[in-house]
């Protein structure tokens, strides 16, 4: 039984150029029918209790107060005593009132989409907020009593220099937040950038940026616990750790994915279909044993090999002996019962995973 839940709120007031997620321009007329469908979906799931709840998007905080209260009410009854409830927020919509409301409802973690601290770069990627709105948003949430705040940043933006990345980092460290998710820009086919055929950043420069990000974060007291995730005082994203440790999670809403009883599914990405017919999940045939390795090696905690062997009834060390021989100890280390990536290993995880995949 899953005890984590992802809720996809696919509405956005404007479209960011790098985004390829399921997103629809905010349309007041669609909100109520959409909320009705979410309610039906939740009822159909027979959820018992939730340790983590995550409202992602889209732009969850683009919803009006009343809509947000309604959405929250579907899930609140299931929350455990020690829950983590994250809401992704765009800085430009955050107000003192919103921050207070979220706190009152029980939201205890905020993931703020900052992306960069350069106003020109923000424009260049289709973001509509300003730097001041970022600092305001953070102070509103802190004032309201929500201190577990995470910031999303993107580097390797078009024409970005290493200096500019360092400036973004300096801004970030000044904000005193507990968690950072720092991604390199991926040019997704279905994004605006993909359609414009924006060229990816020079590979060497991107590697320089990544290494700079990692060392600067570590210097400032952040633990590099996943390829793109950094936490202070063990303020890990508990919800995301669910994904990386091969556990089930509910996926609710148009464009959401979930995993129940080890089976991955994807809900429809089409809003009209969703409103008419519900989530219409498509179940995916996946090799869970490999997926577990793929996800776990993203984190510094690594893969619990003993658990893996028990769950999948396979002999890890025999099956993967050649891969292990090739990458240990420079890229992978084994600290019984955990197989962990070294910092170098994290940086070329795809190369390593292709070799794992090749054995299958």
């Amino acid at each position: 039984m899953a005890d984590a839940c992802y809720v996809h709120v696919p509405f956005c007031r404007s479209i960011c150029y790098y985004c390829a997620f399921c997103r629809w321009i905010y349309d007041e007329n669609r909100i109520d029918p959409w909320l009705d469908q979410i309610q039906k979906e939740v009822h159909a799931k027979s959820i018992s209790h939730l340790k983590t709840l995550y409202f992602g998007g889209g732009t969850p905080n683009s919803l009006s107060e009343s809509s947000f209260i309604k959405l929250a009410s579907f899930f609140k009854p299931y929350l455990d005593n020690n829950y983590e409830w994250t809401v992704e927020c765009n800085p430009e919509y955050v107000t003192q009132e919103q921050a207070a409301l979220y706190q009152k409802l029980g939201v205890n973690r905020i993931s703020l989409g900052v992306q960069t601290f350069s106003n020109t770069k923000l424009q260049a990627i289709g973001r509509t907020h300003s730097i001041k709105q970022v600092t305001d948003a953070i102070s509103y949430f802190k004032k309201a009593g929500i201190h577990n705040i995470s910031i999303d940043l993107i580097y390797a933006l078009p024409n970005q220099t290493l200096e500019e990345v360092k400036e973004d980092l300096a801004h970030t460290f000044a904000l005193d937040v507990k968690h950072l998710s720092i991604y390199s820009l991926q040019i997704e086919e279905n994004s605006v950038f993909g359609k414009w055929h924006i060229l990816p950043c020079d590979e060497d420069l991107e590697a320089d940026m990544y290494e700079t990000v990692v060392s600067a974060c570590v210097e400032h007291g952040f633990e590099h616990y996943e390829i793109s995730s950094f936490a202070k005082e063990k303020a890990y994203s508990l919800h995301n750790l669910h994904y990386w440790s091969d556990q089930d999670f509910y996926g609710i809403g148009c464009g959401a994915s979930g995993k129940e009883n080890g089976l991955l599914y994807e809900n429809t990405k089409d809003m009209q279909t969703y409103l008419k017919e519900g989530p219409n999940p498509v179940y995916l045939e996946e090799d869970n044993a490999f997926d577990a390795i793929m996800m776990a090696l993203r984190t510094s905690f690594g893969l619990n090999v003993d658990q893996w062997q028990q769950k999948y009834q396979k002999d890890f060390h025999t099956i993967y002996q050649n891969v292990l021989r090739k990458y240990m100890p420079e890229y992978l280390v084994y600290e019984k019962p955990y197989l962990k990536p070294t910092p170098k290993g994290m940086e070329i995880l795809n190369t390593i995973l292709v070799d794992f995949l090749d054995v299958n």
Partner: protein
Amino acid sequence: MDQKNIRNFSIIAHIDHGKSTLADRILELTDTVEKREMKDQILDSMDLERERGITIKLNAVQLIYHAKDGQDYVFHLIDTPGHVDFSYEVSRSLAACDGAVLVVDAAQGVQAQTLANVYLALENDLEILPVLNKVDLPSAQPDVVKEEIENLIGLDCSDAVEISAKSGLHVDQVLEQIVHKLPAPKGNNDAPLQALVFDSLYDSYRGVIAFISVKNGTIKPKDKIRFMATGAEYEVIDVGVRTPKEVIKSELVTGEVGWVSAAIKNIEDVRVGDTITKVEQPCEVALHGYREMNPMVYCGLYPVDNARYDDLKEALSKLKLNDASLRFEPETSQALGFGFRCGFLGLLHMDVVEERLEREYNLDLIATSPSVIYHVYKTDGTMLEIDNPAALPPTQNIDHIEEPYVRAEIMVPKDYVGAMMDLCQKKRGEYIDLQVIDDLRMNMVYELPLSEIIYDFFDKMKSYTKGYASLDYHFSGYKTSALVKMDILLNGQIIDALSTIVFKDFAYNRGNAMTIKLKDIIPKQQFEIPVQAAIGGKIIARTNIKALRKNVLAKCYGGDISRKKKLLEKQKEGKKRMKKVGSVEIPQEAFMAVLSMDDQ
């Protein structure tokens, strides 16, 4: 069917002049293929042929034509390839014919391959029927082109039909002329059997099927037959024709063109060009076979997966069945393991064979860059024929090297003569002659090293002349050249399969271009890889493939699992097509890099 009512003919033309389209129309007009089954280029049965819009293999069909004189005629139409590489296929099909329909594009006029094909037809004593195609194009000048045919080829064009094979205009008149102007097969139905094998293919259920033109006598099931060159004897199981569907007949008589199946399991027993006769009542002499076509271009073919060596061997044997000019013999490479040195008539031929092996036999192959045959004279007075650069003896043992030259005839509009001369000079060409064809065009004659022709001459010619020039060439002899072997080193190690023989003055540029190209093709690996070009131990060009530093997905959450794994699957597939040489993974296309680089 009365022998005098049989017509065996080919359609010959320069590439793209409308040969296959005319064949399509003839099949429609004679109701050979029903409209609903009709598709473009119907005789081109290979996917590869339709995709590229070319004919690679000859194809023979029987059709019945109700002529205006009230009689029925049996036509055997033998489609032929148009590209210079496949002229051997043309000559084989022509040997099975008595006449040829010569298709000339009324806008483009006579082209180099038009002439080459006409000469082949004349060599085979064929009656030639000129036809002007594409007369409905605004740029068509049928009268000018007729005059050109008369002047250049010496064919009477007063009755030449002006057609549009595309729309079908006047194609019926071509059929009438085939009846009246092309001869019936000679031959004697009562004489001992003499049937020319002009093609064959392997059918996994029935063994080798031989395509034959019956020159004398008859052949039917239960006949005991002998292949005269190989001496192999078999009992006929079935005979028949293609319409183009396979049709079983009770017998094939003199003048007919069809197939024979005799449970032939041994591929080597059937040789194209051989004569079939009967064991009990043999003919006295075999028919004139074909001139053996000698391969001009060689390359190594290796399975990516070494375990599939035997599969490759079997596939090559089967392909050779209906591709007599394909040669292969085992070869080993330090870098690539066990494979075959294969000989081809040209680059297109090589390309087609490689693609057929990959598609029809599901093989992943590495082809090394093509080479001509060099005559290497050693200091001890002996001569070696070298078709693999890696086999070149050490420099100190070489007195001199000769390379094959071709006599190339290039038909080109006057405006481009200067540009083409420039190209021929750059490609080490020697001027022979320049002839005026008409007010607009000239015929340039040059002697050129074959290695330059296979390198990139054809592509360059097309771009220098906006596609207006046409080329024909034939081997003219060997000449001494200043040639050197250029080695490529990856990570300090010579990769034998990447060695090439180059003209000394070009070596520096090619070495540079080659190292840069390889740097682009070979994916980054966990360590830096120096890429060097060297001549006899001296490094002439160098670059580095930087080390792979970062290869990781920025984001991977629950909803991304499936999509992100597909990316990994894709990387894995790419890796499968790479060959690990020493510590370096090299993708297939690297071995052909020499063909796709720009060194000017």
